[in-house]
C-alpha cells in the first residue's frame, strides 16, 4: 500500500465517506479551495480521517479534521504518514 495519499485517493474518499463526486483533476486544480466549495462538510472530513485511520491502523494528526482545503489536508496527512513510515 502506498504511504502517500494522492488526489485520486482523496477524491475516492470524498465519494465513499460523504457521497461527494469530484473529478481528481478538479480537486487538483482547485486544491486551495475550501472543502465546503466541493460540498464536503465537517462530518464528511471526519469520515475521511476515520477511513484513513482504519486503513493505516494509525491515528491521523489531530488537526487533519480541521483542514480547510484539499492541499492543506494532503500535505498534513502525507507528512504524518511519511514521519510514521
Amino acid at each position, binding site marked *: 500500500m502506498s504511504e502517500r495519499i494522492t488526489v485520486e485517493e482523496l477524491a475516492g474518499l470524498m465519494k465513499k465517506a460523504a457521497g461527494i463526486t469530484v473529478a481528481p483533476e478538479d480537486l487538483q486544480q482547485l486544491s486551495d479551495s475550501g472543502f465546503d466549495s466541493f460540498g464536503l*462538510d*465537517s*462530518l464528511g472530513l*471526519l469520515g475521511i480521517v*476515520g477511513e484513513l485511520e482504519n486503513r493505516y491502523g494509525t491515528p491521523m494528526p489531530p488537526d487533519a479534521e480541521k483542514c480547510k482545503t484539499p492541499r492543506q489536508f494532503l500535505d498534513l496527512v502525507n507528512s504524518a504518514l511519511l514521519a510514521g513510515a
Partner: protein
Amino acid sequence: MSRRVAVTGIGIVAPGGIGVPAFWDLLTSGRTATRGITFFDPSGLRSQIAAECDFDPAAHGLDAEQIARADRYIQFALVAGEEAIRDSGLDLAAENPWRVGVSLGTAVGGTTRLEHDYVLVSHGGQRWDVDHREAGPHLHRAFAPSTLASAVAERFEARGPVQTVSTGCTSGLDAVGYAFHTIEEGRADVCIAGASDSPISPITMACFDAIKATSPSNDDPAHASRPFDADRNGFVMGEGGAVLVLEELEHARARGAHVYCEIGGYATFGNAYHMTGLTAEGLEMARAIEDALGQARLDGTAIDYVNAHGSGTLQNDRHETAAVKRALGAHAYETCMSSIKSMVGHSLGAIGAIEVVACALALAHQVVPPTANYETPDPECDLDYVPRVARERRLRNVLSVGSGFGGFQSAVVMTLPREKTL
C-alpha cells in the same frame, strides 16, 4: 381567554441521585456525577466516561412485568412520573381522564434495547439477514418511539392528547413546550410532561465518538464536563428522566395545589444551517428566546437566570453566549447563566426536561445551581457562568434554552406566579 399553565409537581431520575431531594442536593453542592462507564466495557472508545444513574427499578416500585416490558428510559419516566404525580397532590382518579394529556420527549428512545437485540439477531454483527427467532419479546416496544408516552399514559390512565416528541437534544424542552401549548389552547387541563433517555450504549457512544463531540478526558471523568471553560473538550454522555405535572392555573388553584411556577412562554426555531453545526451568531436561538419572552409578556431584562444548554463543546458555548447576548442585550451581563450538564452530563433528549426541573427548583429555593468545573474563562464567553458554587439570588423569571442536532433551537420561560399585564 388566555389560559395560564402552572407546574404543580416534579419528579426526577438523574445521575447522582434518584428523586428531587437528591437531585437538588447534587446541583447545589456542585458535585459531579460523571464517571468511567460501568454499563459495558468501553475500551476501544474515544470517550469512555458518562453520567450514569444508579437506578434500581424494583426499589422504586416497578414490578417484574413492568421491568421486563419497559426499556430503561421508560422505567425512568415511570418512576419520575410517580414522584411528580405524588408531589402534585393530584388525585388522578378524580380527574376527567380525557382532559389529561401526556407529552414526553426522547432523542434516541429504545436504542439500548434495539442494540441489545440486534446483537442477538445478527449473531454479533455477522449477518445482514438477521435471524428473527433470536429477538426478545418486547422488541417492538423499543422500536416505536411512541412507546414512551404510551407507557406513561397507560400507567396514569391519561386519555387526552398523548404524544412523544423526538427533536433530538431539544426533545425535553419541546415536550414541555408542547404540553404548555396543549393546555393553553384548551386541549387538556393537565399534562404529564417531561422527557427521558438512556443512551449510554455502545452504538450511541460510538456515533458521538465518530464526530468527536464527546469528551475524551477518560483519566479525569469527574472534571470532564467543563461548559464555558477554556479547557472544555466535548460533552459527557448522561442519562435520566424528568417529569412535570403541568396544569391549567385555575384548575390548580381550585384544588389548592402548590404551584412551583408558571410556564410563561415556549418557542422553537430551526437554524437551517447544519445538522450538527452551529453559527457563531446564535440568531435563531435568540429568536426563540425573544418569542418565548413575548408569550410571557416579559422584557429580556426581567430574566434573572438562564439555564444554559452548556454542553461543553466549543461551538455550543460560543453560539449560546452570542444568542443570549443578542436576546437579552446588556442585561446578559447582569443576569447569570449556568450549565448543570457540568454535573449530570448530557442526557440527549432528557436533559431539556431535567433542566426545566432544575429551573423550577431554582425558583422554589431562590438558588442558582452552578457550573461545576468552571476554572479558566474563555475570552469569547464572557458572561457570569456561576462558577462551581451555587448562589442565592432573587429569582422571579428564568429562562432555559437548548440546541439540538438537526438545527433545533428552543427556549422556555418560567415565572413565579404573578398577574400577567398586557
